[in-house]
């Protein structure tokens, strides 16, 4: 089932949680809402579920307006951040709850309930825990039970609020790929909220990056990572170097180097910020091209197959060192040690005029 979100806005007192948000969730996809805390992602999820009402805007389920539908009628499965398992019921009763509270006419028989619950517990590989209570389970187990409980009512949409937020790193990784596989098997339209970029990029079909109640970018994990649409997305996803820059009639200047920026043909002497990923910087021992900056190696750190360099530009006002990532082979070729002078060229960078941070133009220079 597809979900359409049209122009949602929501205020909490003076705080704007959602600011004219529109979004389409395709049938059967796994969508991540990614953003820092306070970006409105959880509010958006709760409005879709019907747990909150928006001040204005619409939510359509399969093209039909569900804005005024009670959460009970929306047939959504919701997995809460802290699982919200009923502490006074066994695991079995937790999963059976949604079936047991149905009106008599629609309630399955006890045998059917038993069958369906055990099937679900089997699916989440925890059927042996049926008679336990929530407090006897580990965090990861509780998370899977919460999912089984949500699935028991055969929802058309599955909504997950920070599903792995409260788990430790190892369990988190396991559950992540498990959820991905589960989704591939069931193909239920799913939306999950996360503040962890790695989680969003690894699990989701598409990622919605949110900030301050607005959507910054929607795209596949590759798109949002490789072609960030705004400075915010650049800074939020992965490491990035910032260079103060200047735009003038389709040209960009960073320090002494001058680059093409055809997207900014109209810019007249405008201050800008250039973003370069650490692995998109070429390092040479000699200045063999015109567009290169010289810098000093101040720190070398080897992390597995990657070598991280910290460089400081000569006569630079910027105190923040430039981060560069090389693979081991390249590092060996260069034979760098601390204090060496190197010449760097951005392989790819995006320039954003500093005043209008949200303009979605970008310039790519190869």
């Amino acid at each position, binding site marked *: 089932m597809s979900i359409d979100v049209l122009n949602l806005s929501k205020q909490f007192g003076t705080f704007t949680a959602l600011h004219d948000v529109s979004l389409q969730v395709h049938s059967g996809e796994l969508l991540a809402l990614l953003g820092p805390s306070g970006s409105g992602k959880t509010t958006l999820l709760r409005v879709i579920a019907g747990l909150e009402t928006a001040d204005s805007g619409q939510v359509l389920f399969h093209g039909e307006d569900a804005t005024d539908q009670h959460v009970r009628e929306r047939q959504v499965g919701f997995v809460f951040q802290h699982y919200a398992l*009923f502490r006074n019921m066994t695991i079995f009763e937790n999963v059976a709850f949604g079936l047991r509270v149905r009106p008599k006419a629609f309630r399955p028989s006890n045998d059917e309930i038993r069958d369906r619950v055990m099937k679900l517990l089997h699916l989440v590989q925890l059927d042996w825990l049926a008679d336990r209570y929530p407090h006897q389970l580990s965090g990861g187990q509780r998370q899977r039970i919460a999912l089984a409980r*949500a699935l028991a009512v055969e929802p058309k949409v599955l909504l997950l609020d920070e599903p792995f937020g409260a788990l430790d790193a190892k369990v988190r990784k396991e559950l992540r790929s498990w959820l991905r596989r589960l989704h591939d098997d069931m193909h239920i339209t799913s939306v999950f909220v996360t503040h962890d970029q790695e989680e969003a990029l690894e699990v989701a079909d598409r990622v919605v990056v949110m900030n301050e109640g607005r959507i910054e970018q929607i795209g596949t994990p590759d798109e949002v990572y490789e072609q960030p649409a705004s400075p915010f997305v650049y800074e939020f996803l992965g490491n990035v170097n910032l260079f103060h820059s200047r735009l003038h009639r389709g040209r960009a200047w960073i320090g002494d180097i001058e680059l093409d920026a055809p997207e900014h043909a109209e810019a007249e002497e405008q201050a800008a910020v250039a973003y370069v990923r650490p692995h998109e910087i070429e390092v040479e021992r000699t200045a063999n091209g015109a567009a290169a900056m010289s810098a000093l190696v101040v720190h070398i750190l080897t992390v597995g197959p990657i070598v991280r360099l910290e460089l400081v530009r000569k006569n630079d006002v910027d105190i923040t060192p430039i981060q560069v990532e090389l693979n081991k082979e390249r590092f060996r070729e260069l034979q760098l040690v601390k204090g060496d002078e190197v010449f760097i060229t951005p392989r790819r960078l995006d320039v954003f005029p500093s005043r209008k941070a949200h303009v979605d133009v970008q310039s790519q220079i190869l």
Partner: protein
Amino acid sequence: MTTITFPLSPAAQQKATQEPRWVRWALISIALLFLTLFLFIPLISVFYEAFKKGVEVYVAAITDPDALSAIKLTLTVAAIAVPLNMIFGVAAAWAIAKFEFRGKNLLITLIDLPFSVSPVVSGLIYVLVFGLQGWLGPWLSEHDFKVIFAVPGIVLATVFVTVPFIARELIPLMQAQGTEEEEAAVVLGASGWQTFFKITLPNIKWGLLYGAILCNARAMGEFGAVSVVSGHIRGSTNTMPLHVEILYNEYNFAAAFAVASLLALLALVTLALKTLIEFRNRQHQQRGHE
């Protein structure tokens, strides 16, 4: 100068953040002496005075018809006041803990108000409303319905002084439990009452019981407020605490302490149950965390 080395004494092994042993024992002794003087001896003296003249006198005192009727009235009043305040406490806590609305803090303060009103004033205000000189007095006497100097007045005054007990127990408990479980139940299709009876009530039952026990102790033991509205009619509007007063003022000390010992026993049972529930909650909490 001579240096002597010998094994560290226990006192020297004490932790850096602990007082010397003598200080510890001095403080414990002073605290226990204070508690003995002000708590334990008064408690023991109630039972001592009750049995001083023998078991027969004791039994006679508490099986006296007036005493029995006082016991019956006290039980009746508590049986009305406690359930009323349980319903109120649950309703108030549901509204306050599960919803965000304006004026919430004012409401919480209002609920606590009866705790800060003198018991005597608590009784007096009902006389002002229902007494012969009161707002509803003429109308009530026309319809031959007595509130003041009758059981309804005693019930009302008792309900007033015990209003906060259960609500103030449940509000923080339900606030701490949050709304996620209830929301989950509603998402799964449960109706309002299903959510309340299957999720909320089981989660608060111990808090409810705890509040009810404290409420009951106060309801059975209330003296000042009830004294103002009761009229002290023997065998009819006398509760146990009032009966104790009458016997005492008649210099019938043994009988007064005999009835008082029943109330002291109630206090001890209350404390025991209270401690048991607290113990259970602590265990439960430890189990809940991991």
